[in-house]
């Protein structure tokens, strides 16, 4: 196994970690603020991917525009879901939240099958992303580098949003104590809807970014959501940095796992999660919640 191959595989792992990170970011934000663990989050990833794929074709292979439109549409679906389905069950036990959103997974999966069917096509790559960059003597697709850059940018932007802006401060205050925030004049309901829409958009972005390189299929949401659960639980539920580190860990490890021990690659991730949870019950970056 040469250095070149290991480096290449590491970069591939990094770029696939970014899709996972974007998905997990939304999941962990929604959990951190609303306290709802959303099984259907993977479905939004899938919807984002399908919509971006469709608009990519309609809008004359304009990727940026296609992704933007896809994000807006998915966010609108998210707002409807939050208003009419998540809101009535927010005060209930986590079990019921998981059940309701599991029902949504079934609905969205079948709707996607009905509307798009199994699309097993990868559309053409935009011209500026064609070709490769040379990293330490290894050629590497430009698009993957772009995805890594995009993922890191989103991380920085989210950090700035939550730590440095007024809105972020209100969100953190509401997450800490919704009743007190409401008493101080925060419109908690609207805030919840906004945060849910943001989370859904992040998932959709993860799905949409994969348009020119990844296959879109109806079951992709259910596959991704389990990985995202692992990532968020690994990092600590509700923690953004935790989700980022968790995604990198899972992405890179499964990339090397595929190369070095392909038979246990899948099992490896589940084992890591189990071990982390046994040693640190609240994840790497998580704090104990009462």
């Amino acid at each position, binding site marked *: 196994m040469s250095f070149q191959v290991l480096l290449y595989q590491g970069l591939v792992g990094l770029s696939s970690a970014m899709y996972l990170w974007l998905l997990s970011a939304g999941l962990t934000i929604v959990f951190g603020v609303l306290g709802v663990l959303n099984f259907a989050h993977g479905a939004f990833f899938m919807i984002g991917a399908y919509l971006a794929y469709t608009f990519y074709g309609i809008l004359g292979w304009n990727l940026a525009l296609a992704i933007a439109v896809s994000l807006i549409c998915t966010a609108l679906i998210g707002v409807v879901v939050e208003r009419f389905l998540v809101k009535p*069950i927010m005060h209930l*036990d986590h079990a019921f939240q998981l059940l309701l959103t599991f029902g949504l997974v*079934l609905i969205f999966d079948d709707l996607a099958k009905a509307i798009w069917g199994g699309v097993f096509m990868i559309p053409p790559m935009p011209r500026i992303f064609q070709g490769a960059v040379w990293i330490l003597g290894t050629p590497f697709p430009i698009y993957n580098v772009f995805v890594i850059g995009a993922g890191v940018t989103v991380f920085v932007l989210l950090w700035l949003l939550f730590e440095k802006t007024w809105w972020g401060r209100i969100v953190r205050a509401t997450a800490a104590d919704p009743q007190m925030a409401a008493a101080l004049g925060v419109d908690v309901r609207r805030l919840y809807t906004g945060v849910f829409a943001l989370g859904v958009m992040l998932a959709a972005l993860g799905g949409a970014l994969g348009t020119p390189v990844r296959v879109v299929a109806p079951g992709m949401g259910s596959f991704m959501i389990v990985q995202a659960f692992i990532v968020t639980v690994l990092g600590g539920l509700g923690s953004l940095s935790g989700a980022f580190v968790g995604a990198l860990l899972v992405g890179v490890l499964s990339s090397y796992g595929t190369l070095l021990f392909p038979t246990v690659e899948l099992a490896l991730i589940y084992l890591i999660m189990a071990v982390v949870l046994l040693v640190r019950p609240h994840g790497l970056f998580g704090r104990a919640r009462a």
Partner: protein
Amino acid sequence: MKAAAPMAQAVTTSVSRIGYGLVLVVLVLLPFFSSTYTQYLVIHMMLLAIYALGFNLLFGYTGLLSFGQAGFYGIGAYVCAGILLRYPSVLAGVLGGVAAAAAAAFVIGVLSVRHTRIYFTMLTLAFGMLVYSVLWKWRAVTGGDDGLVGIPRAPLDLFGLVQIPLRTVTNFYFFTLAVTVIALFLLYRIVHSPFGLSLQGIRDSEVRSHFVGVHVRKHRLLAFVVAGAYAGLAGSLLAPLESAVTPVISHWSNSGDAVLVTLLGGVRAFFGPVIGSVLFVLIRELVVQITEYWQLVMGVIVVILVLGFRGGVAQAVVDAWQRWVVNARAQPAHQQAPQPAFGNAAQAAHGQVQQAAERGESR
């Protein structure tokens, strides 16, 4: 008013005894006036009922939501298949499958029951998918994504005394029915034993249970092993029924089916998951004839259940029945019977909501 409630209880009990008897008679007579296909469907209902009943011991009675039951289902199915392919005795296969699933549940349980709530759910999900990935990848033993095929419906060999062939669907139906009745009876006894009551105590208040001397973790572990064994039993009956097993049966969506079935039937009634299984298979059969998107219909049902009927079908029926009985009894004695706070069921439903709200607060 006070006298009416026990009377209603007594009436309900005797009626339900008669009901169980009737159901059993119908099930025994069913093969004599129904097609093989109907029998095949009922077998599936029974397997699902065993699977979901075990799950509900964890969820409804102990308050632990497992999303990894399909892992034990898969282990039961694969071990039974492996045994049947080498040694043609259905009893050996089923017992082996159940034992393997219970053993796996013990190991995974030791690691998982330290956690509760969401972390327990996530851990069981991960372990279930671990089983899935092993079944998928360990080609030499499990056949990979092709699974194991050509599993014989081996005869039932009772200690070398009698050999009952199970090759026909009807014979296998009777075998499954016998196993289901035994499994149901055992679980009924477990639920109504001091152990079962302790589990419910743990569900309602972990702290208080601990305080009165219940070893919470040990009880949870035992419940987890029983639930795993029941999932394994359902799986090990599936192997000879379908004569093939594939990794898909241990995917988390199959764990979701156990949850769905239980919710559909009713979490708080012992026979809730049984009702849920019957409805689930029926709905699937009916919907599949109209459209291929039966998951969509199931999803809508789940959403409606969670939003409006968290007690499931069983709860709705029990509530309606008790209201009817109490009103019928109470009306002559008291001309204006107020809506009484009768029956355990209504209170249980109320308590469930309240408890959920409490848990939500302490998040």
